[in-house]
């Protein structure tokens, strides 16, 4: 889910560390107390029980989708070769 607003201070647990995230227009708050890397606006968060646990920058998110796609394509290409031989 994409981060659109951040409140609080990464070093101050008293500050109420919260991100507003958006997924297809649905917005909700998630806690940032235990996230592995403090997010920037536009990053993606993986959320568990109301807490963000992992931050991905947009590039990482895209790379992951691309890797999976490439993997699929490579396999298809290999098959095409097999069929020809």
């Amino acid at each position, binding site marked *: 889910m994409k981060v659109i607003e951040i409140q609080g201070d990464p070093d101050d*647990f*008293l500050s109420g560390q919260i991100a507003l995230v958006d*997924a*297809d227009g649905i917005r909700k708050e998630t*806690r940032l*107390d*235990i*996230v*592995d890397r403090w997010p920037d606006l536009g990053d*993606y968060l*993986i959320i*568990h*029980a*109301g*807490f963000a*646990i*992992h931050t*991905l920058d947009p590039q*990482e*998110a895209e790379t*992951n*989708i691309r890797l*999976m*796609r490439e*993997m*699929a*394509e490579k*396999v*298809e290409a290999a*098959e095409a070769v097999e069929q020809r031989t």
Partner: protein
Amino acid sequence: MKYLDEFRDQTLAEPLLKELRRSVTKPFRVMEVCGTHTMSIFRSGLRTLLPEEIELISGPGCPVCVTSASHIDAILAMAELQNTRIALFGDLFRVPGSNGLSLANASSQGAKVDIVYSPMDSLNLARKYPEELIVFLGVGFETTTPGIAATILAAKNSALDNFAVFSTHKTMPPPLLALLDDPELQIDGLLCPGHVSSIIGAGAYQPLADTYKLACVVGGFEPADILQALILMARQIANGEARVENAYTRAVRWEENSRAQQMVRAIFKTADMEWRGLGVIPESGLAIREEYSHYDAERRLNIKLTPATEPKGCRCGEILKGKEVPSQCPLYGKRCTPGNPVGPCMVSSEGTCAAFFKYTQ
């Protein structure tokens, strides 16, 4: 949710399946540690699509299922207390204690029980019911504990007095070590849990790979994630390798999530813990530290755990050790169904028996 849909894509799964079939050179047995994997493998129909050389065994990764009967009894005893309100994640609601009754029964008889989505929600309950003690049931593995630690800290910081946690928190590598020491359990690979690993880091499985010569692959929960993990595992096994690989890089790094782990270590300390079916495993649990004993329901309510018997006939212990499948349990599908569960395996939506029942009947 566009991002997630990409991973659910069927057109992605088919080529991955083909690659998996190509990578498998000999039969092997994989334990999927995590209940969420078990569920996803059934729900997506993967179980029937996989090459028959791959045997999948479900492991101890459903926190509800591994909660011992004596802990359930203690929870039910707390629910009976005046001025106490139990807050919990949903699954535990219907798990019967040793007398056959569950929190659901207690609730219908007037006990105050609230299902929450996040542990932080129980702080809202504490504000709403100042005259009650809100007891949050801390049941879960590494993924769940940091949020609960953060909630205890938040309660302290906002001077909320009427909130406590009953901790049956468990940690992941110790039960795996206990299982793997059992010579009867012959497995070649571990499908390591995605979310737990995002907290402890993929590196945490290195000792397992080294000691037991196991191919350990961390996998996500979408069908394409699971297939990708199984491809890596099949390749390792074909090449006679046993190492840790991460097929879930979008959520898991090699290193631990140190912010989360620091939070956990600040509030909890390791403790011996009783597991259903596995008995007491040294240092496999987390107890609340002395400094935060005010937030420890066990101390605050003076809860004593008493040994409890498992439901009669229930084979959960054997199932959780990967030694039996649900249909070997005499109660399966007869006295024990998702609508009327006898053992926790059938209650939890991630339980092996529930998954078998839902998808193979």
